[in-house]
């Protein structure tokens, strides 16, 4: 019994004597700094680019061609509504789009005697203008391909 205790004490004493003081890896601060820089770059990029994987899709992230296609299709539907109103009222045009139940952000409507003009802004620098003398089919022709994503 005493022998076991002495032997255990000797083992522990030897282990304590042999133990080295804990030492950090020299590279650890550098690795941490690199990781910090990388994470800061990712976070900064996510904020500056408004990354969809962080902020989700935004209306402003639509491709310009798709945005134009969507606006064109809305104009196409609006023109169909206005023309149908005109047909049903003996060539009278609605005074406002609200009169035919249409309201689209960024779309304006102007009546000039017996013709009308529909204008929609895609962004601050580009607008689509439709005049009632034009074939409305032109509006929809290039638009429908943007309504539905192609399946893989």
């Amino acid at each position, binding site marked *: 019994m005493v022998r076991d205790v002495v032997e255990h004490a000797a083992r522990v004493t030897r282990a304590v004597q042999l133990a080295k003081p804990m030492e950090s890896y020299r590279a650890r601060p550098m690795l941490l700094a690199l990781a910090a820089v990388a*994470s*800061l770059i990712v976070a900064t990029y996510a904020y500056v680019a408004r990354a969809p994987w962080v902020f989700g899709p935004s*209306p402003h992230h639509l491709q310009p061609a798709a945005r134009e296609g969507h606006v064109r299709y809305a104009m196409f539907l609006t023109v*169909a509504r206005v023309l149908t109103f005109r*047909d049903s009222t003996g060539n009278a045009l609605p005074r406002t789009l609200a009169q035919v139940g249409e309201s689209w952000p960024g779309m304006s409507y102007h009546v000039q005697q017996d013709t009308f003009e529909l204008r929609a802004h895609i962004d601050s620098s580009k607008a689509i203008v439709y005049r009632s003398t034009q074939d*409305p089919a032109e509006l929809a022709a290039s638009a429908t391909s*943007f309504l539905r994503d192609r399946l893989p």
Partner: protein
Amino acid sequence: MSAKSALVEVVSVLAIVGSIGAIAVPKAATLQDERTADALNADIEVVRSAVYAFYSDSAYFPPEGVQGDILVTLEPYLPAKFTFRRPYGVMEYRNWPARAPFTRPVAAQPGDTIRPDSTIADRVRDSLADTIAGVLVPPAATRVRPIPGAPADSVPTDSAVVSRIIGISVVPRDARVAAIAAHRARRMARFLVGDKVTFIIFGA
């Protein structure tokens, strides 16, 4: 370990934790918006099913109502207490005229050469669309006057309302929800104008 190294480590850890937090907070908000967008898309499916059920019973699509107000004609087909004023925004049922020059399908006549790539489904759909057009629009009401000021050869004198384009517009309180809903409903025909997302459920 020198004090300088310790400082570098502490600052680095703080930067990493801050970066993760800066990404996690907006990501959590996006996840919430995605749940809202999923609810919006589920509601679109509910209304679409109701519209189709109405059409199945009536052979025409319900006319439009006032924005946000549920259609009396659709009410029996919708779940109890379903309203068009949703927690995320306002839904609106839309029923646009589709005019002949753009949408009129050409049904095969006896003796016509059928395109080799047209399927039986195509031909059935075209014939059905013609039939629907005939049922929906009385011929007397479909004539369209020439467009004033337009060159005569560019005016579709036989243009007519032959079908309908049926859609559901939603104006969510948060424009991001509209964008996410449109993004997540890729298989549906839909378009986004400003903060208004519209799903086409028939006729696109």
